[in-house]
């Protein structure tokens, strides 16, 4: 029976539940010492001087590492240590000592003199005439004729005054703009037009495992243990950050307590551990605590947005005008806001759309992709508005989503891209049935004492796959199939699930397979980053390609050994069998080693990545090798969908909300691993519940210092915020553009969970849309009581 579609026990399960699994922090090395960071207390400052003499004189203190000793990338890149910190909590220097207490005491003994510099926490402040820039070289990055440039962009006061008078978001000159269709005509055609300013907060990723790391050097080689989403890419990235050849670095990251996009590949702070270890010639462990993780652990960018949407009487969306100001943090350039524009266009398929936006540098922690970057924010913001229109037009809310959803050949976004498939309607229908939309809809507005029921639906698309990576397989003389996986193991099981594509093609039982992952010295193929929901798509393909290569080689090896034509041999039951008899995989492996050449990896395909080549070369001669690049066709971009359905009970006297029922339904191609899919849909949705209801950032505007820097103040959802009843469904239609038919599913559940809840809350409020995420109790109660809203229209960090 094919493995794909079955529940299996992933190979890391036992180690995890017994505690044998080693996370970065669990590694030890002879003579290991500990490092601690000195973090910036100011949102923007310049280090005038550092006097570490008292610290260095303390017994047990071994050395410090300064910004000048780490890689300083070109602006607006981020270094691991800096002498111009641009957010509170940015690491300035690191210190190593025999134990953490000594290290911490020594950090306290460092006299550091900082010169405060102007800072911006709210993007809009930075856009005001004379407003502060978060960076000395500007507040936005633009792509001009001369390439990218950092500039100080200010909008005229008149724009702020006009916005104030009209009670909307100020919208001056953007840096990004695209459109299609005739927007004026679209709005003219509309029977119902709505317009709103909506704010979405930033949120820290807060994976369970913070980014701790351990490093030591031996014979000029660096051994680095870290937590990562994508081992092979992290290996490459860390080698490059450390100016090492990949061969000079061993990177180990077998288990990862979550990343959500914050540990996609290289993690800058790991450099510090490695460089400090080299400097003091001792193994160094740097445990990152929750407080530090809050600062250096990445975050989802917040949006201050405005939209205008036009609807025809039949529910068709005619036009969308969308403006997004993104709160970006001080480094790099996250594309969430652009993606949000594309997602909007994809999921609502308006006849005409204009997108304008810009991303502002702010003195807040650095942003990076967080599970459905851009998508999760925008759907939670816009879906309640679509509800509002549906109510106004008397159309069922599920229906209006189906009316506007894309079909397989719909186009979207600035480049008018197409998708590989879009089984959105199927997913909506499967979910509506599972959830019993018709029945639950009847509960909408029902009162039970002071509680009123709200029912919501939220649609959430996200990119679900990339292609072009390599697969690397080896049958060793023990007869087992070794599936080398360069992707990481962040708890999604995809390092196991994508391996099934190879196992199935070779007709193997799961017990005959061993997955090799998480340690660059074990030789990984060039792999996708395990982010953006690429993995299941990219690596079922790559492993399938390698399995085809292996199958051919098995046949040829058997034919060579037993006679007859290769094509006459069948691969099944861990044997290759044909007219001349049968070889076990173990025998085939022995034969392949004897034959050499491509069979044992001495000769390699031309088109594989150099990284794979190096790994394969290391493995050559040890068995029968299957190695190939994924060259399958892939036209259009791959998108997955989740639609969330939620029932909430809202207490009209307290503003309290309880999510009582939830179903998420996916279009993610075929279902590879049902239990894992359920975990993704549910886990992502719960993250979305937190986004919709409680999790946020808070900064003191005067000092630029954040408060939500502990889990209890950042408020991700707790177990009691999760409904007892959670269900899932899947359309289960294979994607025609990929041989296995599977699409990624990591991202879209977050937006679905969040949007279903913002939609359900609006429903409980008779369709009133509060245009703010999260919808905390105070916001809801102020609305219920007709009191002034606690947060100003565009206030984003309150």
């Amino acid at each position, binding site marked *: 029976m094919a493995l794909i579609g079955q529940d299996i026990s992933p190979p890391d399960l036992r180690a995890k539940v017994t505690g044998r699994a080693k996370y970065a922090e669990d590694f030890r090395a002879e003579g290991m010492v500990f490092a*601690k960071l*000195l*973090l910036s*207390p100011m949102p923007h400052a310049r280090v005038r001087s550092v006097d570490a003499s008292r610290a260095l004189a303390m017994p047990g203190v071994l050395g410090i590492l300064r910004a000048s000793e780490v890689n300083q990338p070109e602006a607006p890149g981020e270094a691991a240590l800096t002498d111009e910190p641009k957010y509170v909590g940015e690491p300035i220097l690191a210190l190593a000592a025999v134990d*953490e*207490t000594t290290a*911490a*005491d020594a*950090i*306290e*003994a*460092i*006299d*550091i003199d900082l010169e405060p510099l102007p800072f911006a926490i709210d993007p809009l402040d930075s856009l005001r005439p004379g407003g502060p820039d978060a960076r000395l070289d500007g507040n936005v990055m633009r792509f001009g004729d001369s390439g990218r440039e950092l500039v100080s962009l200010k909008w005229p006061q008149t724009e702020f005054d006009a916005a104030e008078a009209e009670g909307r978001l100020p919208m001056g000159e953007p840096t990004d703009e695209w459109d299609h269709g005739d927007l004026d005509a679209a709005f003219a055609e509309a029977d119902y037009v709505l317009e709103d300013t909506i704010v979405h907060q930033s949120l820290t990723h807060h994976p369970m495992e913070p980014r701790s790391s351990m490093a030591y050097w031996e014979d000029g080689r660096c051994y680095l243990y870290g937590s990562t989403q994508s081992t092979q890419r992290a290996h490459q990235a860390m080698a490059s950050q450390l100016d090492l050849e990949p061969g000079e670095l061993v990177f180990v990251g077998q288990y990862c307590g979550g990343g959500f996009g914050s540990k996609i590949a290289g993690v800058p702070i790991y450099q510090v551990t490695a460089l400090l270890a080299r400097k003091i010639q001792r193994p160094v462990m740097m445990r990152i*605590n*929750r*407080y*530090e993780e809050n600062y250096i652990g990445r975050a989802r960018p917040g949006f201050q947005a405005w939209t205008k949407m036009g609807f025809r009487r039949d529910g068709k969306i005619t036009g969308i005008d969308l403006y997004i100001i993104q709160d970006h943090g001080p480094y790099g350039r996250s594309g969430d806001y652009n993606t949000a524009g594309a997602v909007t266009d994809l999921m609502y398929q308006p006849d005409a759309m204009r997108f304008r936006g810009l991303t502002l540098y702010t003195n807040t922690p650095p942003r990076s992709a967080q599970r459905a970057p851009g998508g999760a924010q925008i759907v939670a913001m816009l879906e309640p508005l679509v509800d509002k229109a549906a109510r106004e037009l008397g159309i069922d809310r599920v229906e209006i989503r189906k009316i506007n959803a894309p079909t397989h050949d719909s186009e979207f976004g600035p480049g008018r891209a197409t998708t590989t498939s879009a089984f959105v309607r199927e997913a909506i229908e499967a979910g509506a049935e599972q959830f019993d939309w018709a029945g639950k809809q009847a509960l909408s507005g029902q009162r039970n*004492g*002071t509680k009123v029921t709200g029912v919501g639906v939220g649609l959430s698309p996200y990119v679900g796959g990339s292609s072009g990576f390599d697969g690397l397989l080896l049958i060793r003389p023990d007869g087992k199939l070794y599936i080398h996986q360069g992707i990481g193991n962040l708890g999604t099981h995809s390092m196991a699930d994508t391996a099934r594509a190879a196992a199935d093609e070779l007709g193997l039982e799961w017990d005959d397979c061993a997955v090799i992952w998480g340690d660059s010295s074990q030789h990984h193929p060039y792999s996708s980053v395990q982010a953006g929901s690429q993995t299941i798509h990219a690596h079922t393909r790559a492993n399938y390609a390698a399995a085809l290569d292996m199958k051919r080689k098995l046949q040829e090896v058997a034919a060579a050994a037993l006679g007859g034509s290769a094509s006459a041999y069948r691969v099944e039951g861990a044997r290759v069998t044909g007219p001349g008899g049968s070889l076990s995989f173990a025998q085939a492996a022995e034969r392949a080693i004897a034959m050499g050449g491509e069979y044992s990896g001495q000769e390699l395909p031309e088109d594989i990545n150099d990284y794979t080549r190096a790994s394969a070369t290391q493995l050559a001669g040890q068995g029968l090798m299957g190695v190939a690049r994924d060259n399958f066709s892939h036209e259009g971009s791959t998108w997955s969908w989740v639609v969330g359905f939620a029932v909430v009970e809202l207490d009209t*006297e*307290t*503003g*309290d909300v*309880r999510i009582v029922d939830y179903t998420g339904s996916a279009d993610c191609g075929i279902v590879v691993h049902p239990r894992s899919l359920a975990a993704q849909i549910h886990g992502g949705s719960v993250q979305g519940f937190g986004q919709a*209801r*409680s999790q946020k950032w*808070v*900064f*003191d*505007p*005067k*000092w630029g*210092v954040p*408060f939500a820097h502990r889990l*209890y*103040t950042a*408020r991700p*959802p*707790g*177990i*009691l*915020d999760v409904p007892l009843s959670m269900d899932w469904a899947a359309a289960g239609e294979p994607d025609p553009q990929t041989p296995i038919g599977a699409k990624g599913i990591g991202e879209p559940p977050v937006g679905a969970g969040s949007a279903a809840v913002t939609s359900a809350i609006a429903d409980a409020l008779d369709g009133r849309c509060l245009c703010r995420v999260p919808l*905390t*109790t*105070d916001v809801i*109660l*102020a609305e*219920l*009581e007709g*009191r*002034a809203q*606690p*947060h100003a229209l565009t206030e984003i960090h*309150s």
Partner: protein
Amino acid sequence: MAVIRDMMPAFELFQPTSVDEALDVLERHDNTWVLAGGLDSMDWFKDRIKRPDVVVELGSVSELTGIRASGDGIEIGAMTSLRDVVASDDVRSRFGLLAQAAAEVATPQIRNQGTLGGNLIQDTRCWYYRGGWPCYRAGGNICYAGTPRSMNREHAVTGQSRCVAVNGADTAGALVALGAQMMVRSAGGERVYEAEDFFVGPEIDIERMTVLEPGDLLTHVRIPGDWADARFYWEKVRDRKSWDWALASVAAAIVESNGTIERARIAVNGVAPTPVRLTDVENLVQGMPANDDTGMAAGELATRGFKPLRHNDYKVPLARNLVRRAVRGDAA
């Protein structure tokens, strides 16, 4: 001096086995700290903001744990864990209000470790103060939370006096409503406080939350039988359903006969630097029917004169409605 957080510095630890021994250690040393479950204390230590030289851990003082009968009521040792308070039949059957309140503290893990005494004495969670800012409560001269731009969504709407922090102890409101007494011992002897007098507002002492001074130990909480047969109402509204302090809470003990309120004792918490006993409301509702009109009148009276800050206006209707529900007698 650079700042470092989340890393506990060293201190001298004492683990006495009797109250006398504990008091003796406290008497003999300066800059001491009493450690119960540590959930509040460790936070301070780890952030190196409060730095005691000597820590006196009470875990081995057996006379401070346990729940026993006392007169017509019960007496609960200060070191009794919140879990044990919740699980106690004595508490549940006669003083369910306390059990309900204690059951909603934080999370099971925290309730296993946290003690009743520690819960009552816990310091405010004002994040400016907890962040180590040199505010009034920390001995400085500014309230950073009270400015027109401050982030004070979770701060006080009443009882502010330079400091606008709130008391976060869930058990405090319940014990005020139950008319409990706090028994305090120091080298100088024993003192007994009515629950509502045990808490100190910033107008009196801006650096403390309770009457306890260095060298004092809360030994027991005594709950008299006065309200044992009352109808209780407890409700706590928070951002998350677990692991979260109250945005506001109400605790009420109401004795009714034939739908008329005979006597009531009501406290709200999370709205002021101390739990607030609503004596006026208690007087108002006496003799009135337990219905929404009375509840509304009670809620209005309770919140009269509340002074919301920039971000916490919602606490006014929230507190009003909580009192209203308590008086009305919703099934909680």
